[in-house]
């Protein structure tokens, strides 16, 4: 049998990859880039976690420590978490899931990758030239007056990378509006698409604000124009307002696509349609919209008026409602489902547990009184890592394992993958749960030296981080290995519903489908799928993943 032509082997030159306009290849380019940034950010984390084992911080100098946690934050937030799901899985799946041949603007899509890489190079240049120590938030007047001038390079890097994010958002919005296959109505869209759509809205409306904010910061830093300098009549808190106007919605850029993945996984591995489809769909939009009006909860202890704080606090509670809708609906989907504990499902269930902790501790922090005590402590650190790592990274890994056979046409070792998923879950909890306690006891974030009575928590945390790092390392072994030695995947190994599984091969051809699909049924028609499955009785095919 001759090798089937698909997007990977259609052309094989390096040039054909670097000049590709195929959304699937661009997704792979993004995957490699964000994994690179993840390794950098992770290495920084390992270094400062080891350093924090002792109260005096014996491993790193104070300045190096500051630069390490800044690098960790900048790399992980702007160059990993923001693009990871939209630009990798979203890029790969959005056109296929809606039955299109490509995104609406393929060349813009490629441009976005080059812009992203340019931004990344700026940030890396800052690192090589000596590093930044402001923290990923670049708060003024520290960043504008006191810190070293590598702030300019890093700020420009994030500014440039922001436009990659905007272009991806524009592309997805137009693609989802205008490129759907015949019969693919809005309410037949997979929930992953709804989540990407909501995310794109935030990317398009939020990112330009951080761009202009960082540009003002760069001007302030380079020319001392006074906008954020209190000595010249400027207001440093204005920077925080503008910064969080993007950066809080950006938290939802970093979690909404994860929600979309979880909906797909839970439905597939409970063999049921998602409970309350339209509620889950609209809760994504609700989160995107309300998410724009909660930024002040980062600033309860600044000069912000107490009444503004009150409103921000209430809105922050309100945004928990659509989030809770999702969690409840996933749980209801599991109820009486035929649950299978395949690798992606283990990540999905891990996600629900960890995100629940992350989300609920968010409510602690949006209570103004409690926030005065918890602000800028390890409690906050633990909270957002439960959301970002326990939520988004777990969801991404679940999605990656789910669509891996589709993306590369190969299956990975199921035993290794399940073991790794469990290692990551344990390592994560061991790293971050002690931080809730030590934060509540009063350990401030970003401190290099701390009182000895907190040491036990830091040792637990560092131990956990090592387990977590080991888990990621395992993944870096068996996933690449599967590309070489893995068994060939069938078109629909799980088997799941959706155009990407039912209407095309693994991996898909360059224009995604051999025949342009027509959609005739609702999303998640698992009842029908199960019936077919048992009638045909082909368990041999489903077991190879």
């Amino acid at each position: 049998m001759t090798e089937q032509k698909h997007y990977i082997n259609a052309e094989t030159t390096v040039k054909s990859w670097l000049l590709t306009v195929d959304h699937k290849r661009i997704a792979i380019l993004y995957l490699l880039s964000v994994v690179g940034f993840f390794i950098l950010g992770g290495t920084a984390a390992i270094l400062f976690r080891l350093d924090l084992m002792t109260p005096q911080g014996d491993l790193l100098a104070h300045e190096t420590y500051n630069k390490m946690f800044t690098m960790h934050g900048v790399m992980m937030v702007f160059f990993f978490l923001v693009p990871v799901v939209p630009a990798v899985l979203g890029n790969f799946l959005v056109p296929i899931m809606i039955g299109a041949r490509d995104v609406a603007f393929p060349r813009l899509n490629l441009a976005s990758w080059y812009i992203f890489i340019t931004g990344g190079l700026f940030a890396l240049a800052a690192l090589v030239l000596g590093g930044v120590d402001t923290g990923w938030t670049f708060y003024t007047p520290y960043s504008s007056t006191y810190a070293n001038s590598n702030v300019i390079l890093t700020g420009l890097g994030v500014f440039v990378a922001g436009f990659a994010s905007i272009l991806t958002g524009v592309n997805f919005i137009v693609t989802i509006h205008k490129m759907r296959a015949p019969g693919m109505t809005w309410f037949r869209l997979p929930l992953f698409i709804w989540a990407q759509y909501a995310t794109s809205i935030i990317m398009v409306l939020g990112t330009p604000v951080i761009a202009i904010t960082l540009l003002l910061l760069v001007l302030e830093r380079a020319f001392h124009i006074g906008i954020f300098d209190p000595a010249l009549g400027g207001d440093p808190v204005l920077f925080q307002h503008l910064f969080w106007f993007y950066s809080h919605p950006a938290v939802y850029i970093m979690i909404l696509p994860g929600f979309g993945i979880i909906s797909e996984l839970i439905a597939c591995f409970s063999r049921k349609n998602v409970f309350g489809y339209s509620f889950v769909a609209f809760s994504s939009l609700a989160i995107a919209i309300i998410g724009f009006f909660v930024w002040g909860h980062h600033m309860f202890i600044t000069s912000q008026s107490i009444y503004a704080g009150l409103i921000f606090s209430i809105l922050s509670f309100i945004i928990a409602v659509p989030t809770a809708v999702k969690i409840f609906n996933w749980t209801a989907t599991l109820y009486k489902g035929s649950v299978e504990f395949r690798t992606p499902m283990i990540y999905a269930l891990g996600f629900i547990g960890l995100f629940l902790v992350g989300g609920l501790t968010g409510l602690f922090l949006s209570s103004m009184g409690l926030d005065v005590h918890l602000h800028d402590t390890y409690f906050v650190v633990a909270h957002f890592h439960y959301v970002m790592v326990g939520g988004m990274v777990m969801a991404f890994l679940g999605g990656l394992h789910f669509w891996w056979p589709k993306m590369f046409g190969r299956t990975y070792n199921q035993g290794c993958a399940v073991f790794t998923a469990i290692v990551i879950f344990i390592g994560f909890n061991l790293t971050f749960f002690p931080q809730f306690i030590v934060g509540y006891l009063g350990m401030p974030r970003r401190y290099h030296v701390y009182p000895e009575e907190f040491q036990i928590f830091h040792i637990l945390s560092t131990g956990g981080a090592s387990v977590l790092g080991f888990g990621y390392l395992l993944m870096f072994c068996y996933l690449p290995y599967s590309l070489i030695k893995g068994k060939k995947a069938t078109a629909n190994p799980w088997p799941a519903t959706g155009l990407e599984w039912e209407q095309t091969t693994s991996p898909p051809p360059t224009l995604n489908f051999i025949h342009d699909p027509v959609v005739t049924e609702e999303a998640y028609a698992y009842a029908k799928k199960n019936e077919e499955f048992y009638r045909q009785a082909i368990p041999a095919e489903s077991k190879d993943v």
Partner: protein
Amino acid sequence: MSNSHSPHLHHHFHSLEQQRQASSLGMWVFIAQEIMFFGGLFCGYVVYRNMYPEAFAVASHQLSIGWGGFNTVVLIFSSLTVALAVRSAQLGKKNQIIGWLVATILLGVIFLGVKCIEYSAKWEHHLVPGIHFNYEPHYTDDALHESTGSEHGTDHHPAPAVYPGHVQIFFAFYFAMTGMHALHMIIGIGLMIWIIWLATKDRFAPEYYAPVELFGLYWHFVDVIWIFLFPLLYLIGRHVT
């Protein structure tokens, strides 16, 4: 689809209509992000104008209303010429597209030239924030000075009406906003040269002229930004004198 084999149809679209709608929606979404981009600057402007209204009024007097007004007229005319270019594209008249776009480029260059004159005047008057700024409070208008003094009671030594630092913030916004606007115009002129090149290659037809139309949207947007910038920067506080 009757037009499914049109040379203007890209491989991933099913019809020219779908392609037209997609590119148009894309441009509108892009303009939405542009509004948020400038919105950050407008927001900062509003905050500081609220904090230092007198300084902003006084600083605004340093701008040349004549040049600003002239540029406003130039830009409005360029909106007309770009609209005529789009109209020519709809009618499939290649030479007219090129003619109107060249006219638009000329108007754009005139605008930027005037901007250069204004910027160099600011440099001469030491009004460039940070690198070349030295505002003398005696520039302050006397009438304004007295009115501000009287508001604060009968103090014999009223605080100066405006602090140079606050004037500097006005000029920081002046340069950031007009500079960002000018950058958009420079990009626009580059795009027009590209579209003229496409037109000379006969790339447009009455059923396909998306680049001209979308560029028209962009250019109008840049004009609208100026329509907001002109009063906010040049006209505020004119009633004071």
